[in-house]
């Protein structure tokens, strides 16, 4: 794998995470439990889609002059490089917010490292995105605490959400040849090196939320290398890409 090929994979991983999570969160638009949450979720989705335009815009430049839209709407499931965590369905509001928190915690730490990237384009995107993600993390962390340390019903649902999602956490810290090349070039950190900081942050919030972190470190994998996505990604894409598939090149 050449350096450019590895760089492209890295950019797709960043951009596909924000794209797929942004789409998932946007599914709440108009149907969230209360207006304030609806607005918060829509704003979070909007930030994530905006960040996607920057990551996939840069990926497209590396990939022979494609646009961010080309990459978002004209690739099939096996070409996506997002972690499995972001493609799991929303289920109830509690699971949506738990997924958001588990991702935001990783995202904020990762972007913090990427601000120091040797590639100035990566550093610029990370600097911009990290300001937005600080608010995402504050919101999802507060809500996880509010619901976890809430009623008997909300506590039970948050624990269920954590139990369900925890096996998807490990993939964010998996490393392969792409990561090795990015580390060697000074572009990005080893994902595994973020784990200690992540565990400290997540444990602090989940303890406050009176939730118990599962002991198992088993991790579902296959998203960030595209080897095996969950069945949910294909369903998501049929909706997200429908217009461009039915009317290729359509604009408005």
């Amino acid at each position, binding site marked *: 794998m050449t350096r450019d090929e590895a760089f492209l994979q890295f950019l797709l991983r960043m951009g596909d995470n924000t794209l797929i999570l942004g789409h998932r969160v946007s599914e709440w638009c108009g149907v969230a439990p209360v207006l304030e949450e609806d*607005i918060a979720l829509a704003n979070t989705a*909007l930030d994530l889609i905006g960040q996607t335009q920057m990551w996939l815009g840069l990926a497209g430049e590396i990939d022979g002059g494609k646009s961010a839209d080309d990459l978002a709407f004209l690739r099939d499931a096996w070409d996506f490089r997002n972690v499995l965590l972001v493609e799991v369905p929303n289920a109830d509001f509690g699971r949506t917010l738990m997924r958001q928190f588990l991702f935001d915690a990783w995202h904020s730490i990762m972007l913090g490292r990427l601000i120091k990237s040797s590639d100035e384009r990566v550093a610029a*995107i990370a600097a911009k995105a990290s300001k*937005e993600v600080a608010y995402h993390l504050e919101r999802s962390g507060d809500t996880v605490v509010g619901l976890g340390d809430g009623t008997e019903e909300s506590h039970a649902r948050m624990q269920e959400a954590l139990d369900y999602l925890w096996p998807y956490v490990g993939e964010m810290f998996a490393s392969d040849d792409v990561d090795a090349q990015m580390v060697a070039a000074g572009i990005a950190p080893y994902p595994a090196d973020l784990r200690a900081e992540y565990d400290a942050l997540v444990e602090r919030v989940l303890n406050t939320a009176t939730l118990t972190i599962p002991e198992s470190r088993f991790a579902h994998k296959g998203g960030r290398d595209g080897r095996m996505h969950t069945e949910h990604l294909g369903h998501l894409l049929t909706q997200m890409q429908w217009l461009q598939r039915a009317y290729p090149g359509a604009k408005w």
Partner: protein
Amino acid sequence: MRASTDQVWDWLDAVPDPEIPVISVVDLGIVRDVQWQGDMLQVTVTPTYSGCPATSVISMDIETALRDHGIDNLRIKTSIAPAWTTDWLSDKGRAKLEAYGIAPPQPAGGPKRCPHCGSTAVEKVSQFGSTPCKAHWRCTDCLEPFDYFKCI
């Protein structure tokens, strides 16, 4: 004769933000640079929030305003570094925001007072408000909700 860059800044200061029309795109601090490159005028703008739908409207409004002033050869350059910060809001813009009912950003991370009644008894409802750049607060004295232009 081509317009001076000072003149162009004045023209841009008359282009309102599409979401908060009491302040101009210059007050908002998103116009970073204006310069002539030969016969072409280059205006550098920086987006506020990366997904803010107002960004593309702002670029279009800037272009339309300058064309109305007779500048045909122009280019809008988008720059994301250094990232936009609320520190770039002008003092004039901050005062206009408050008069309009939007509490201006504070380094402390929350509004100094209620923009309606001036009370300091305020509390946060949500980190997110009606646009990406605002949070949702309320006053516990006059009981009115209000937008807070959040710091980034």
